[in-house]
């Protein structure tokens, strides 16, 4: 639900193919609007220092590990915590927030999903992320922006629509589910490689019935999202999903699956996709939940 749209949508032809073109902008659009007062650009990376090596001029840093997570409980920040974070970053409730990052926007998509839990009205992803901006020779800066502190309102986090918990996943068994981890993690063989510390899970494999679609298949070589036709071939064709399906996506801790959540929800127009952020680090450690080994769902 859009309450305010502070900035115009990007009218680039490629984006209009997608179900929700208002959720995504090109690097050109960002370059053009960078100085607009209603816009805040935020970089969210896997590497916590990458922002410091240079970022889009004026962009703030948003780190999921240290800022979007609750420091004690395994959960995201709560309403007051999110309001404090946004206020510190100089983001208002009516700000057009554009997120971008490294690794095909993997972490930026995660940050966008968390912002969506709090219903930030206008949050978008910059197609191609950090890699594309730099590849195009656009300016980067190491100067830390000084944005005036804002008074972001405390809003409740809504975990009911786009987030799934373990009990809900158990109740969902037999319905469409996508495991977006690597094939080795899906089959369960990764936990058995000699001399490798386990990835925080006691059991390997996947949730019964989940189909394997590694998240990065949605990204092209230049880190932009694949075209709608290509995405439909993967998710509707190969994985057999339908836009009306109730879908649960998961990975290891819910980061990579946020990327797939974005693709299904905003690029392909699925109406009900939930990200199970407990993911394999919860499921693979849980007593008596069913697990399937091997390459088949």
């Amino acid at each position, binding site marked *: 639900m859009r309450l305010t749209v502070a900035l115009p949508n990007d009218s680039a032809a490629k984006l209009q193919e997608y179900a929700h073109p208002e959720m995504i902008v090109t690097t050109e659009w960002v370059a053009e609007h960078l100085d607009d007062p209603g816009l805040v650009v935020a970089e969210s990376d896997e*590497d*916590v*220092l990458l922002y*410091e*090596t240079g970022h889009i001029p004026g962009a703030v840093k948003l780190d999921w*590990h*240290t800022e979007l997570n609750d*420091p004690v409980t395994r959960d995201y920040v709560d309403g007051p915590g999110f309001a404090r974070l946004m206020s510190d970053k100089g983001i208002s409730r009516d700000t057009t927030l554009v997120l971008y990052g490294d690794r095909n926007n993997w972490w930026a998509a995660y940050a966008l999903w968390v912002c969506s839990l709090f219903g930030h009205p206008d949050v978008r992803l910059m197609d191609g992320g950090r890699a594309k901006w730099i590849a195009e020779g656009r300016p980067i800066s190491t100067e830390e922006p000084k944005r005036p502190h804002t008074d972001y309102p405390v809003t409740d986090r809504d975990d009911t629509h786009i987030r799934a918990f373990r009990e809900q996943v158990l109740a969902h068994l037999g319905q469409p589910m996508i495991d977006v981890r690597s094939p080795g993690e899906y089959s369960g063989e990764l936990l058995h490689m000699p001399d*490798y510390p386990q990835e925080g899970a006691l059991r390997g494999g996947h949730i019964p019935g989940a189909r394997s679609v590694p998240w990065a298949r949605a990204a092209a070589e230049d880190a932009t999202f694949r075209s709608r036709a290509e995405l439909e071939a993967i998710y509707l064709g190969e994985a057999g999903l339908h836009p009306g399906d109730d879908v649960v996506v998961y990975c290891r801790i819910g980061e990579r699956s946020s990327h797939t959540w974005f693709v299904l929800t905003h690029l392909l127009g699925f109406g009900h996709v939930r990200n199970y952020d407990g993911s394999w680090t919860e499921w693979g450690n849980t007593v008596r939940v069913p697990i399937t080994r091997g390459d088949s769902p």
Partner: protein
Amino acid sequence: MSTPTLNPRLQEIADDFNAMSGKDRLQLLLEFSRELPALPDRYAEHHDLLEPVPECQSPLFLAVEVEPDATVHLFFEAPAEAPTTRGFASILHAGLDGLNADEVLATPGEFTSQLGLQDLVSPLRLRGMAAMLARIKRQIRDQRG
């Protein structure tokens, strides 16, 4: 609970980090990342000789050489887009390269939690550095038979 002792070089690095405020600690880690020595040609041209460290979120490769007199040499490679991983590798290089094998083996695995980086970098990311150290020690043991 006693804190295991670090070798003087690692202790100095830990002291430097802990003497700083949060933001400056990140800057120091960034400086370390810039100081990571490049691979010598014998490894740069033979990537198969390097051991991957998949616990790091970004790709990291390392090699360990133990000389006949037990002096340890460390070699790392990580991409420029992974400054945190490079920084961790660089800290281990600055703190351990050139030491005696026994001194390296005596480095406590929990050393990574003594840099004051948990809240800034997150424990999950620090696990990558602990994994590098574990692999370095294992390679030393393997090479000494």
